[in-house]
């Protein structure tokens, strides 16, 4: 029954927490006559407008976080679609009509640059209209433009549709049910325009219009949307509630595959109505500022890099050994054959390009085969790092939204028991019920084209400084990294390397160099002694050893005057002591480098001159590698420091990570745009001296005293030099008025140091020391050398607080 549009009263709007001045009725011409919509509009003024399109059964209320939180730089206009919200009730609309209406509204009511935001079934409407509205950016929240292959129609939608009249019109079940998916405080507002069956007619029609198959009237329009999306080359944000039973993670994977350059913010504990999640407006504002300022940089020429898969063909049939570990050796030919079979098996099991696969295989030949198989499917390996601990591992794997898991019978059982990969298909190199056997497949795998912009892997930081983070790499960055590493490791043209970091074995096919993996547990680098290293190499001429300081220390201390010729040894994970460098030089009779880098960006410097320091203390990490832009920023703002001062180090390279996986917020927090180039905040502090990058520790470890900030390393170095023992400097007290406390390494618990220890520390220190303690220094799992000064500071604070 037709009904004119009617805006809610100011009192109603205020009761819902909306600004009454936002509410407007807008009449515009369409091909089939004039249409009147109710909109929430923050008002003209800003040149750029965010046009928001709700889904079903919601209305413009859904965008209140954006209306309130986006700030003064953007105008936000949230519409109520025809037959929805407070807009007019007239004839039923199909998708194509809705698209045309949105285009008509956008072209008549708005001008200036436009950003489209859409949720739920508003997604196809907005994307369909994008072809005509030419947005400068796109924001999609829990939506879809196509049903991913192998995914059933969301059962809730199917159920609503089969009894559409009962569920959607005659009873408020669908409206209420949807409103239940968010905070109680939003429920009243969400159901307000849908109180009677007449008001809900549009809801039912909307559900009936959802195309479920080729015969449905809107199927063609939906397919058109998918085409439009594929052609939209604008910054795109996928804002995703991870607890959505309707548009679940499979739909996110589908969108990610369609828009490879999209930035993703997946909120693990938010449901379907994700635009109502707090912080949405603030994040969109920050994201837009950056996305419009420094769009995803794909350097010219990078697109042509393709992916590492392109290089595999050259090794077909090669019997050259690519990997040798405690469990055996693997040749190129074996890798290619076995990964082809595994890829075909995965494809047969439904793995689609862009989907994520949890790699629950311990470092081994099988890990290499499985990773290459996943790459060949165009899918993304999520490389689980067991050294982070089981709890961390579960959190990271769950958050990655993996739809497949490859493991051993044991790891798969553990993953299932812990609900680490809920709903994922399981695969392994074994025959076990419910597990796809990757050793057998019918025929070769389908070839999948992979571009530089496609995600190559999700890996995890060590968690040495805060919780472990998931880091996403694109294929282009991986190839750029290959070039940088090749030069650094001296492996141009092949060769062999060994490493104490088990996960680095995956670099073997990337570098096209042989990896020799020592027989140690992944989380015990300090068990890598001289004899283990010698038997790992067993006469093979390695060009390079890439070791954690703990492993190097174990080798050096068990060498007993013996030599192990290695031309280049790389020590990763600062700080590196000069004694360790000298000891390794003696053992390897080669060059020892301490390059600087991190999971997000590796490598950054060449590691030369590790024994040098600079005028402000610290240790040299070598010269910047070609292609790296490094800036030193003040700690309290983003200005560059004056020459000769220290500050936070920020970097930009072609082989930087793409961002923290599915967390635009984290990525933005760790990004600063300088001269139009996005730089990664490394969280490290240091300075440049005579072309060398000098490292002064972590930003999180800076001591903020009344006299100014002090870098932990600069405080510790002169004391360690005199004492000959490892010490950690921590700040106790509120930032800005902290006092310096020195902890001297000692096997016992944390306690006040006796005078014979205390007095030399104070005498050696260049700054005033309030207290000297002795105790164990907590170190990270992965390197077993990075001191967790934040934990130490907390413990020292508790001790010195008294009780």
């Amino acid at each position: 029954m037709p009904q004119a549009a009617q805006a809610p009263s100011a009192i109603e709007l205020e009761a819902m927490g909306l600004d009454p001045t936002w509410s407007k009725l807008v009449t515009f011409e369409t091909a089939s006559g004039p249409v009147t919509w109710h909109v929430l509009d923050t008002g003209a003024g800003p040149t750029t407008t965010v046009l928001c399109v709700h889904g079903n059964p919601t209305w413009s209320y859904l965008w209140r976080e954006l209306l309130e939180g986006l700030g003064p730089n953007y105008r936000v206009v949230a519409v109520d679609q025809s037959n929805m919200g407070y807009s007019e009730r007239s004839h039923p609309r199909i998708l194509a009509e809705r698209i045309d209406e949105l285009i008509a509204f956008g072209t008549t009511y708005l001008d200036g640059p436009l950003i489209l935001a859409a949720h739920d079934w508003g997604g196809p409407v907005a994307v369909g209209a994008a072809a005509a509205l030419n947005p400068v950016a796109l924001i999609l929240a829990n939506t879809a433009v196509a049903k991913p292959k192998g995914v059933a129609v969301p059962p809730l939608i199917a159920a609503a549709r089969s009894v559409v009249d009962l569920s959607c019109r005659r009873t408020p079940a669908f409206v209420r049910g949807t409103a239940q998916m968010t905070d109680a405080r939003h429920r009243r507002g969400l159901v307000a325009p849908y109180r009677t069956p007449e008001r809900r007619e549009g809801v039912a029609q909307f559900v009936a219009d959802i195309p479920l198959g080729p015969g449905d009237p809107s199927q063609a329009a939906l397919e058109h949307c998918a085409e439009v999306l594929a052609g939209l080359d604008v910054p795109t944000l996928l804002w995703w509630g991870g607890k959505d039973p309707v548009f679940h993670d499979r739909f996110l994977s589908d969108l990610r595959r369609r828009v490879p350059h999209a930035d993703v913010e997946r909120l693990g504990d938010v449901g379907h109505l994700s635009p109502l999640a707090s912080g949405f407006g603030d994040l969109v504002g920050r994201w837009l500022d950056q996305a419009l300022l420094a769009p995803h940089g794909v350097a010219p020429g990078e697109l042509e890099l393709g992916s590492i898969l392109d290089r595999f063909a050259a090794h077909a049939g090669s019997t050259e050994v690519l990997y040798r570990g405690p469990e055996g050796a693997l040749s190129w030919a074996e890798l290619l054959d076995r990964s082809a079979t595994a890829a075909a098996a995965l494809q047969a099991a439904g793995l689609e390009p862009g989907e994520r696969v949890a790699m629950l295989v311990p470092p081994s030949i099988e890990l290499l085969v499985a990773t290459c198989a996943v790459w060949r499917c165009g899918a993304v390996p999520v490389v689980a790092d067991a050294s982070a601990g089981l709890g961390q591992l579960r959190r990271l794997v769950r958050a990655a939204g993996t739809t497949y898991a490859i493991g051993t019978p044991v790891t798969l059982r553990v993953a299932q028991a812990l609900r680490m990969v809920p709903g994922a298909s399981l695969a392994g190199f074994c025959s076990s019920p419910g597990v796809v056997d990757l050793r057998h497949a019918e025929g070769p795998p389908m070839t999948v084209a992979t571009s530089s912009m496609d995600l190559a892997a999700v890996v995890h930081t060590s968690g040495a400084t805060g919780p472990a983070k998931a880091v996403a790499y694109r294929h282009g960055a991986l190839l750029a990294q290959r070039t940088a590493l090749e030069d650094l490791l001296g492996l141009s043209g092949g060769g062999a390397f060994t490493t104490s970091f088990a996960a680095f074995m995956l670099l073997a096919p990337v570098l096209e160099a042989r990896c020799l993996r020592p027989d140690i547990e992944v989380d015990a680098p300090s068990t890598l002694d001289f004899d283990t290293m010698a038997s790992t190499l067993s006469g093979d001429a390695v060009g390079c050893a890439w070791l954690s300081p703990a492993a190097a220390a174990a080798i050096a201390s068990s060498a007993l005057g013996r030599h192990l010729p290695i031309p280049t040894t790389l020590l990763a994970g600062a700080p590196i002591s000069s004694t360790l460098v000298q000891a390794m030089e003696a053992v390897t009779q080669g060059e020892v480098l301490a390059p600087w880098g991190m999971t997000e960006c590796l490598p950054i410097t060449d590691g030369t001159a590790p024994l040098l320091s600079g005028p402000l203390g610290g240790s040299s990490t070598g010269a910047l590698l070609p292609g790296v832009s490094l800036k030193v920023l003040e700690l309290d703002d983003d200005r560059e420091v004056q020459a000769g001062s220290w500050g936070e180090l920020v970097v930009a390279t072609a082989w930087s990570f793409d961002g923290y996986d599915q967390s635009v917020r984290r990525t933005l927090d760790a990004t600063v745009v300088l001269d139009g180039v996005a730089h990664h905040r490394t969280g490290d502090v240091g300075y440049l001296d005579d072309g060398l990058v000098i490292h002064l520790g972590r930003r999180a470890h800076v001591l903020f005293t009344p006299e100014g900030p002090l870098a932990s390393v600069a405080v510790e170095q002169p004391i360690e030099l005199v004492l000959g023992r490892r010490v950690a400097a921590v700040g106790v007290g509120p930032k800005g008025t902290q006092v310096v406390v020195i902890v001297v390494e000692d096997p016992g618990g944390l306690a006040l140091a006796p005078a014979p220890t205390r007095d030399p520390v104070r005498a050696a220190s260049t700054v005033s020391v309030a207290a000297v303690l002795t105790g164990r220094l907590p170190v990270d799992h992965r390197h077993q050398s990075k001191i967790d000064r934040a934990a130490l500071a907390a413990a020292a604070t508790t001790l010195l607080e008294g009780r």
Partner: protein
Amino acid sequence: MRVLLTGATSCLGRAVAQALRDRGDEVVTFQRHRAGRAPSDRVGDITNAPAVRSAAVDCDALVHLAALVAPRPRWSAAYQTNVVGTANVLEAAAGRPLVHVSSPSVAFGGHPATGEVALPARYQGHDRYTRSKAIAERWVLDHATGPVVVLRPHLVWGPGDTQLIGRIIERADQGRLVLPDRGRALIDTTYVDDAASAVVAGLDRCFDQPAAWGRPLVVSGGDPRTLAELVERILSAYGRTIEPRTIPAPVLGVLGATFERLWLRGEPPLTHFAARQLSVAHWFDQRQTRDLLGWAPRVGIEEGFARLARYASSNEPR
């Protein structure tokens, strides 16, 4: 300028008088008994308002240090000297510049103070000295009619100090020195000459820094040490090498409360308040104080200990 100084016989009082005279100010002391030979000493009882008023009549500014400091004074005595005496000084100032010397303990709530700013004087416990000092500070802040700078010097010590150093040496010699939890609490102190220069700076800011008026400012060296180290170094300055005994902090608190109840007459060896004060950290954010006073400690704790050792070699305490 001519400055009326109350409490001039204390360790800090002597240092303030010296610092003022050194720079050419005329110091008029106000005290109960004629101590020195200086004709500028005015004798009177601080609880007697007319006496204070007449002593101040020809002065340009006042510095109020006098207080009854004792572990367990009678409440009437504490109230008379610390509250009534302060009110009398404020009234006598009559709008002239005044530096009121308070104590950081007036904000003590039994919790550690780590880098804390000066909190309001809300002490509600039953330590009579602190209670009376809290009331006095609130009175000054509420009733000031002229430029008033309120300073809370924290743990003032130095050569000639009988309060802190005297007691530690005495206890140590009696074998009664006990530290809570091995003396792990981080505590800031103020070397006496630094406290004196802060008082002088406070006086000067009465004339040129309205932002410093009418708000309590904690004054300390800004370089804390653990209680264990403070005690050890004071003892070593006096040539003692005694290893103090340790006792769990909560036990010491209970002991203090018990002593207070059992000692009907005289000074108990420990009060609950003192036990708590020694058990938790006490150090303060000095940025605002230094900024507003335009002052920074010149001697500091390390040089302070060196001076103490030189002094101790020729003077036993008491």
